[in-house]
């Protein structure tokens, strides 16, 4: 396919809406979903005479994010005004950061097809969000300023990404990181995590970059991947035909599966940046830096390492556990309560996660089967008190009835019969009742053992320890 002769060069800008209580420069609530224009104040409406005052929690979030991504934190940074006219931008400028952002460098690491990838960052900076424009029919649009002034961290990557799939995994990794830090809920559908991509192609081996286009409006991991794939194809076709790629901004239309160029008028914009005169330089002290560093949780990549090395989990399983911090926390708690890691992982992935529509709900504290309960169940199976098969049934009952395993097993008398005497008696009974099959077994049909095991299990109401049954039958039938 013609696209193979080109190297795909992708840089991503991800905006993470910080989950602070109040806005970045004013006191209105930053919460999502309120009735229109009910979370406004004179400052975020840009009324004449108003001034910004910086929210300390937003700074803290940005510092923690920068540290988690291995950035250099600028301990003295500035805000700047970025000017353009648009109805959702009340002041006619956005307060952002230009040449002195709060974080520089750093990287986002993740796994792609089992291989560790590290995408370098250019910078992370703080800025305020704009309001929302809603389009109605008949020549008018409506503006809601609830979102105006919500704090954003803009994460800018170097153009190190080499495929649409990698881009999607990068965004997933960023999402995991901000959720682990508790600074953003990473909800692409609601817009608390947004992604723009810069995409260009160049002949493999070429040193210079090709012309890039900017892709916007990709509001899910799938859209990120689809949109970039589509753009790569589009550019490849142009280049193959000897045409040039036009530098432009394109909006992805998921319904149509294609992107369309924005009017070129919006393109070349002189933002007339200059330092924000209403905010003196921001200083992050050594003490604050250390406090932020000390507050960092175990990050996804480190957790992944731990799971695959000391816990011995497969990369695939580790990946599933690490993807959401609530799942990893559940796992850690189950292991702490005594469950062997591999077993805990299996049960969590195959049984627990299968029963929740949103894995994040595991963090709510009201899971039907909490980690300690799962660990207890696993313990009963491991110690042979009940069979593995029975264990699954018990789990189902634990989930629907919100009861502990030990209680269910005791109440139902489900304890696995390991008493060899009782089992031997059952085996003798079965063997005696089936002389023809016994003879055929002895004559050379070893597979018939299954018939006998099944019969013994039936005889014992499924409670016999299958291993013991097998051993005893083998002895009885071959003697």
């Amino acid at each position, binding site marked *: 396919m013609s696209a193979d002769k080109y190297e795909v060069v992708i840089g991503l800008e991800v905006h993470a809406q910080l989950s602070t*209580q109040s806005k970045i420069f004013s006191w*209105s609530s930053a919460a999502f979903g309120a009735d229109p*224009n009910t979370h406004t104040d004179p400052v975020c409406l840009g009324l004449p005479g108003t001034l910004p005052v910086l929210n300390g929690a937003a700074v803290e979030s940005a510092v923690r994010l920068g540290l988690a991504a291995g950035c250099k934190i600028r301990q003295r940074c500035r805000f700047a005004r970025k000017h353009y006219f648009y*109805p959702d931008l009340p002041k006619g400028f956005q307060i952002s950061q230009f040449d002195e952002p709060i974080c520089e460098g750093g990287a986002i690491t993740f796994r792609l097809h089992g291989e560790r990838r590290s995408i370098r960052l250019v910078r992370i900076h703080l800025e305020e969000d704009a309001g929302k424009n809603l389009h109605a029919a008949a020549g*008018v649009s409506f503006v809601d300023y609830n979102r105006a002034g919500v704090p954003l961290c803009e994460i800018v990557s170097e153009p190190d990404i080499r495929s649409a799939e990698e881009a999607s995994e990068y965004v997933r990794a960023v999402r995991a990181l901000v959720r682990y830090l508790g600074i953003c809920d990473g909800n692409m559908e609601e817009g608390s995590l947004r992604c723009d991509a810069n995409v260009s192609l160049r002949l493999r081996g070429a040193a210079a970059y090709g012309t890039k286009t900017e892709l916007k409006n990709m509001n899910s991991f799938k859209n990120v991947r689809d949109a970039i794939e589509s753009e790569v194809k589009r550019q490849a076709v142009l280049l193959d035909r000897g045409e040039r790629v036009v530098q432009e901004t394109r*909006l992805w*239309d998921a319904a149509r599966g294609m992107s*369309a160029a924005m009017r070129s008028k919006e393109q070349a914009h002189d933002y007339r940046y200059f330092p924000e005169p209403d905010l003196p*330089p*921001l200083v992050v002290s050594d003490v604050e830096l250390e406090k932020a560093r000390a507050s960092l949780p175990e990050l996804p990549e480190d957790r992944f390492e731990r799971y695959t090395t000391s816990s011995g989990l497969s990369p695939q399983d580790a990946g599933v556990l690490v993807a959401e911090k609530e799942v990893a926390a559940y796992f850690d708690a189950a292991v702490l309560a005594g469950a062997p890691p591999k077993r805990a992982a299996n049960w969590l992935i195959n049984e627990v996660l299968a029963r929740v529509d949103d894995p994040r709900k595991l963090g709510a504290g009201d899971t039907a089967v909490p980690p300690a309960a799962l660990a207890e169940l696993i313990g009963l199976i491991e110690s042979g008190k009940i069979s593995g098969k029975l264990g699954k049934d018990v789990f189902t009952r634990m989930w629907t009835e919100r009861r502990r395993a030990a209680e269910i097993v005791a109440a139902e008398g489900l304890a696995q019969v390991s008493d060899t005497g009782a089992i031997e008696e059952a085996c003798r009974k079965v063997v005696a009742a089936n002389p023809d099959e016994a003879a055929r077994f002895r004559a050379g049909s070893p597979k018939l053992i299954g018939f006998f095991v099944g019969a013994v299990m039936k005889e014992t109401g499924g409670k016999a320890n299958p291993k013991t049954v097998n051993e005893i039958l083998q002895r009885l039938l071959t003697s």
Partner: protein
Amino acid sequence: MTTDLDAILGYVAALKDLDTSAVEPMTHAVPFDCPLRPDQVGTSLPIEEALQNAPRREASFFQVPRIVPVTGGAPEDEA
């Protein structure tokens, strides 16, 4: 207008020859750093007050002429 723009160029020329390599730009006339405020939600404007000066409004929104972000039938809202 041309004389005004000439004035700007005149100002720039007036400053050009002054050696300022040894000084930092003075963006603020205050010697202190950016103060921080605690992350507390205060009282928002009641919606009627927020909209009271709107030259054009509709229900709970400010109204403007339609914003057209793209050529040829594209998605509504850019994120």
